[in-house]
């Protein structure tokens, strides 16, 4: 699960790049960039959950 989250995060980054390339107006760019950040947040959340160890464990 942790690797899935880490793979989703670059997808969000490429969404923000796509926003710059595809949309000339500020409003639509802004919405698309926010969508990219939301995808990154989702990926980060999944990565964080995937890294939570069972209690008592120290080695990932």
């Amino acid at each position, binding site marked *: 699960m942790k690797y899935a989250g*880490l793979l989703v*995060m670059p997808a969000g*980054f490429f969404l923000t790049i796509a926003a710059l390339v595809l949309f000339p107006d*500020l409003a639509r760019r802004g919405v698309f*960039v926010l969508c990219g950040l939301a995808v990154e947040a989702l990926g*980060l959340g999944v990565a964080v959950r995937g890294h*939570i*160890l069972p209690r008592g464990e120290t080695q*990932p």
Partner: protein
Amino acid sequence: MNSSLPAPTLSESLFAFTLVLLFAAPLAIAGVALTNTGLGRSRSAAQAFLGNLAIVAVAVIVFALLGAALAGDPSSASRVFHLAGQPWSWIGSGPSPFTSFAVSGSTFSTAQLGMLFEFLAVALAALIPWGSGADRFCLAGGCATAAVLAGIVFPLVAHWSWDGGWLAQLGVNFGLGAGFLDFGGAGTVHAVGGLSALAVVWIAGPRKGKFPKEGFSNAMPGHNAVYVLFGCLLSLVGWLAWNTAGAILWLHAPLSALPATAVNTLLSASIALAATFGITRVRFGKPDASMCANGWLAGLVASSACAAIVTPAESLLVGLVAGIATPLLVELLELALSIDDPSGAITVHAVAGLWGLFAAGLFAPHPGQLLAQLVGIATLIGFVLPLVYLLFAILNRIVPFRVDPDGERIGMDLHELGGGAYPEFVIHRDESYR
């Protein structure tokens, strides 16, 4: 390949003044190093401080050999691809510092000062993850992560945000304000360092006994609150120099604008400390010294993105948010997400740095600036964090980050150095090993 332009020049007096500021900037590195050492345990103090020095040394050498040329400078050539009719400068191909520093004569170019700034910045960025790995991160692993950060990750981000890369050109190419603004390194230094700290903590795992099978996490308080708090004062001096030098170099701020930058830096740190003091006083009944130190540093980190752009009132707001968020996030990471970060670097450097970048966009006068800052933040979270994690995970296979369990039991000083930092003190047995 993009061709080079002549580097902007400074007057002799401004050049000298900026150079003096850069001589004071390493106090920020000293402060962070002292704070991180104080937040670790006494049986690992010598290894922690030696690690600070070794990491700075490795980062500077690797940056000189490899990173500086990749980072380039705003006036040097860079590698460019074209997309949607716009140039995207993704990496520098500047001269090696061995040749550019050899230039002599009567011109006072910003390129040389910018390179000195980056040498100091890479040292600080590489140092940040070391504190998060305290008490289980071996010296070899720390130096290896510093080499990767200084040779690959930092040069990329420094080129993008300072040296004429695609983030800095967002204003020219896409009409987004003045492009990504990060004059003091809130993103390039602190967010990169803080996100690297998260990768180190994920890969190395928590300290033994930190999260027992039953009950809450065990408190493992820092061994010297005086180091921690004196480190904060040292950091203030360094940060004042760092932010004002950055404003001159990357924002081309006039001398008359520098007192306001310094005041905003001080205000941000002060209100952040007051907010953390208040929050910990309410939550725990008494103020928490180490948490207050983290709040102070978070205020300084947030100011690195916006102290030269915002008004004093806005600076107070930036610091207030950083100071309120710091104790709450440190607790959330430890108790809810089982992230063992002894120095609090993930909150102090990554989160506060990202908040400062956002605030710079929020309060900047240029239209579209907030969007430029959001693109920069998305780059740090969506590209830099996975890249660092991948590189560190590979590195961990070659140089294991974590010492063996016996090393953790006897302490890093004895295990790695053969002697303790405080040989005449009685080191108490760790209760978590009962």
